[in-house]
């Protein structure tokens, strides 16, 4: 996994519970104008879905945002002025990029009203655009602690 942006733009957060992880997501989302793409990278249980739930809460998504592992992609309408749709993608089960392209990923990536969030994004790195904001998750020292690094 190679990050395309030099480390000096990197922000690092240590969160101590799932609520704090959600708040990091909300802080990041404050600047969003629509059309952003987030690539989430990290092991099982490192807080990726939790982060997306934080984004969803900030954007005013009414639905329950649960794991999209099984269906690969779940789009949610929001109540946000600019990001009208939160597209939650999970590449965990994927073996190649083709399936996501079949699902219409490219249209979502180009859409200025969409916020596209991709879990296990390192698996499809080659089809993601340059502007992708990469977010790396790591397990912390204790069970509630997480390290989140954001490159943008």
């Amino acid at each position: 996994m190679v990050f395309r942006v030099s480390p000096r733009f990197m922000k690092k957060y240590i969160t101590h519970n799932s609520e704090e992880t959600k708040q990091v997501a909300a802080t990041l989302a404050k600047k969003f104008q629509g059309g952003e793409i987030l690539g989430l990278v990290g092991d099982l249980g490192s807080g990726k879905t939790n982060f997306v739930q934080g984004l969803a809460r900030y954007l005013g998504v009414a639905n329950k945002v649960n794991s999209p592992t099984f269906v690969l992609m779940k789009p949610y309408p929001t109540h946000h002025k600019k990001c009208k749709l939160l597209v939650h993608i999970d590449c965990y089960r994927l073996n190649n990029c083709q399936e996501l392209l079949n699902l219409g990923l490219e249209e979502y990536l180009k859409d200025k009203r969409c916020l596209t969030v991709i879990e296990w994004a390192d698996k499809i790195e080659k089809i993601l655009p340059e502007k992708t904001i990469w977010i790396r998750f790591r397990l912390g020292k204790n069970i509630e602690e997480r390290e989140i690094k954001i490159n943008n």
Partner: protein
Amino acid sequence: MRILAIETSCDETAAAILEIKNSYFNLRSNIISSQVKIHAKYGGIVPEVAARKQIEMIMPVINKAVICLPGKNLKEKIKNINYIAVTQGPGLITSLTVGVETAKTLAFTLNKPLFLVNHLEGHIYSALLNKNQNYGKLIKIKFPVLALIVSGGHTMLVLIKKNNNKIIGETLDDAVGEAFDKAAKILNLGYPGGPIIAKLAAKGNSKKFNLPRPMLKSHDFNFSFSGLKTALLYLVRDLKRQKKLSTQTIQDICASFEQACVDVLIAKTLSAIEKFKPSTFILGGGVAANQLLRQTLAQKIRTEFPKIKILMPEMKFTGDNAAMIALAGYYMIGSQIKFGMTKKNNYKKIKAEPNLKLSA
């Protein structure tokens, strides 16, 4: 009447012929793609893409399903069906589309009514196929019904009344089948996780490791399995560091994990039964194959609520299959209980719905 059902919501391609006469059913065929051997035309290279596999499999699977029908050749045989039922959703859009478009084409060319079935509704009906044989009398359901659907994509409690149904609780993060898969992944045991973990758990001590029972005190009927997954992750990480991850330890971890999942599912189900007082309890979905869940659930409900009728699907109907879709389709024809869509003959508007909801 004879119903041809097609189910392609995820990785399996399935087709079935169900015959129903005077409330007796006869499952003439029930084909699932993994049973059909197809020689790859492309020198053995089969792309690992679910939808592409579906396209390759769908016609051979349907052909194999209709062979049981009277007629000299396939063309004559397939004309002997009365209805077509197909899974419309929820599921993987590309996979669903293969089934829905095939069903539409068949319905149009054969001029037969088409029923669009909700996959989850199919899992609920699968419990009515609780005969070991492929034929028998259909069970009459007494409403209200409480259904627990547990699979790789879903974990929910549904309250079904005569004319409506309501999801009273569902998972806030991972589905329970997904939790089993991911636990197996953390332990490096392979895929699918459910059967592997259950097998190892049988030799382990479920009291060895104290894993959390998430949401047990949440006072609602929602589930969460993400925290359990994380607890397992840390446990395995620490044991690995201490070089204590022996075969026996792995078996104990599997047993403790399975027990934690089952405990949560059962606690929520029992409190839902207490609140909603259903006449029937139905278990459905791939995780319904888990013996610990089946046995504990049946035993607890029998002791605490002896009046409730318990229905669980036969093992062969727990995973995705088309027989359950056929039966769900049958009830759309015969009764007023409508879970899914019933748009007949309006072929242009029919399409797969990956996020199809079970209740309004």
